[in-house]
């Protein structure tokens, strides 16, 4: 789950990581005066609370020198659609803004903790060239990037933090502050079961203070059973349909296309989307109905797919492994009794008891197209969506 900046900063505070004085998050212009008061003397920085990088360039981060300026910025920013390279053309709506006291900046540094999949452990990544896109830096100046592998059982060692500090040219008198901060963000990563903790930029002020100016935290959904605080947070990224699917144990991600897909298994679900695309159509969603694929799950999956009004045809692709195809066919038929299908349905079954499964579908009298292979199904679904 991706956390908003202000949520990340709250966590940072709990872990003793210095962040700027804040007036908190507001959703209405009327809340601004109180927020400015809480933040202390201006100037202030008003920051759109959205889950997208590149906010600054897109107009989602503004400095206000006076309360009047702040009011104008907030009025404009709340409700606007922020378009950044990460959001796509439609952009992302700004529902809340964070009001922080603005900081004087002498230097910007990049620091993050990420999961290194190749090493199989967390790694601290840092660069003296902060405030830039780290991916760009990695591409063009790989030598400017520092890495320290983290022992997942014991965290960042003090000497590793010092090594980073020297390489980043942290002022000698602030060595302790920096190592505390670096250890702190690693502790956030380990303590929260995160998959990313990023501070970009980490700043050094003219008074040589070391402060985290931004906070990006992504947590590992697999660990929600032991992360009660995270589990209680609202998921700001998921759409209402995605949240509904998650509740019933279905993995669903909405897309822009017209062909609803219901598949068992994540890999096959992706491959089904790819096949639809290759056949000239576009998938409306990713949906992994799970290994069980019983009547209940299939019914739920149909309901979720059909709530997306863009859907012009539904493609069911099930590879019955341990689960027999005749049982899956009964599941599909059972689901169709409960769900009103207003669009063409293409079903492809393969695997155990496939003959019995297909026979059940064909004899049911329910209107649907039965396909012989994934490719056949993709082509038929694309054709059906085109006609509808």
């Amino acid at each position, binding site marked *: 789950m991706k956390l908003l900046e202000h949520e990340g900063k709250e966590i940072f505070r709990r872990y003793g990581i210095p962040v700027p004085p804040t007036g908190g998050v507001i959703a209405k212009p009327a809340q601004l005066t109180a927020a400015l008061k809480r933040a202390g003397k201006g100037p202030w920085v008003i920051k759109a609370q959205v889950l997208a990088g590149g906010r600054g360039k897109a107009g989602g981060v503004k400095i206000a020198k006076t309360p009047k300026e702040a009011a104008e910025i907030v009025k404009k920013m709340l409700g606007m659609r922020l378009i950044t390279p990460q959001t796509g053309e439609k952009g992302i709506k700004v529902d809340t803004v964070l009001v922080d006291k603005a900081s004087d900046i002498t230097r910007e540094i990049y620091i993050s903790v990420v999961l290194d999949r190749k090493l*199989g452990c967390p790694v601290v990544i840092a660069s003296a060239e902060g405030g830039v896109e780290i991916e760009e830096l990695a591409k063009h100046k790989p030598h400017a990037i520092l890495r320290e592998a983290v022992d997942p059982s014991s965290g960042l060692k003090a000497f590793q933090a010092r090594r980073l500090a020297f390489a980043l040219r942290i002022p000698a008198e602030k060595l302790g502050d920096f190592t505390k901060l670096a250890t702190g963000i690693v502790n956030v990563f380990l303590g929260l079961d995160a998959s990313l903790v990023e501070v970009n930029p980490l700043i050094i002020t003219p008074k040589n203070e070391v402060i985290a100016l931004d906070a990006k935290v992504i947590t590992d959904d697999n660990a929600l059973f032991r992360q009660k605080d995270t589990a209680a947070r609202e998921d700001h990224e998921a759409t209402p349909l995605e949240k509904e699917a998650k509740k019933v144990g279905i993995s669903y991600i909405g897309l822009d296309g017209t062909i609803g897909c219901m598949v068992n298994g994540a890999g096959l679900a992706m491959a089904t989307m790819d096949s639809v*695309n290759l056949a000239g159509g576009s998938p409306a969603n990713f949906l992994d109905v799970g290994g069980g694929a019983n009547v209940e799950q299939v019914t739920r999956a149909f309901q979720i797919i059909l709530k997306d009004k863009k859907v012009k045809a539904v493609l069911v692709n099930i590879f019955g492994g341990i689960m027999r195809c005749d049982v899956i066919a009964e599941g599909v038929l059972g689901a169709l009794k409960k769900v009103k299908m207003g669009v063409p349905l293409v079903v492809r079954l393969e695997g155990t008891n496939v003959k019995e499964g297909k026979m059940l579908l064909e004899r049911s009298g329910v209107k649907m197209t039965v396909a012989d292979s994934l490719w056949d199904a993709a082509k038929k679904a694309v054709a059906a969506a085109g006609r509808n």
Partner: protein
Amino acid sequence: MSILLDKNSRIVVQGLTGSAGSFHAKQCMDYGSQVVAGVTPGKGGTTHLGVPVFDTVADSVRQAGADVSLVFVPPPFAGDSILEAFDAGIRVVIAITEGIPVLDMARVKQDLSRRRAAGQDLRLVGPNCPGVITPGQCKAGIMPGYIHKPGPVGIVSRSGTLTYEAVWQLTSKGIGQSTVVGIGGDPVNGTNFIDCLELFEADAQTKAVVMIGEIGGSAEEEAAEFYKRRMSKPVFSFIAGKTAPPGRRMGHAGAIVEGGSGKHSDKVAALERVGIKVVENLSEIGQTVASSPIGALAAA
């Protein structure tokens, strides 16, 4: 020959008495695998599905001669169960469990690396995988056994049902498999593509390999490098997730394009650059292998 498993493999099922463990252990037994024991802490001394249940993996090794473990333990406890299997001297640990916290796996991986560096003969397959099958000899996993057939093609994959699809296409064309390995869809796992390619390269039965990847991480790119330097056998590949949006996890915890890495196009380019045949349409993987020289060999 084959890799990882053969007819002599002696399987202990960790979590045998649970519903998933029971169901799949029975399927493995019906396939002909030697399931010799189960482990459920607190149920030692009982019998389940006709095999002895032990309190610890070490007991199952000592008393039943287990050398392969199949893990069905729920996510909160699965990491610990894997470590227990390592400690008991199991040779191949196959973790089926989906949803293990990544940090737990990082700790498992650390232990695995230390043990292997110290010379322990040990492999972890998974987690979040369908398991391993050497057709006609041993099935240790949740895959449907009957879709497989013994033969010369090794398969390694990050995805379950996608693997079944590929296996089924091959079997339908009369092309059998040496061993099929599901390495799992998690970002931190045990055995990776390179490990399997290395084993398949050294395996006399395997004449060609099908490698099924997906978006996220760089395992496919690393496999391409390995292929270029070390492999003589042909590799065919399919990469899922061409149409997946960036920044979103596609079901598998590891299937995500993030920070510009893990892209479908990069993986395909890396594989094609070293001469690996990448099939764009999944439905053509069986036909592609069949119409290669391997196909003629396999069908003969």
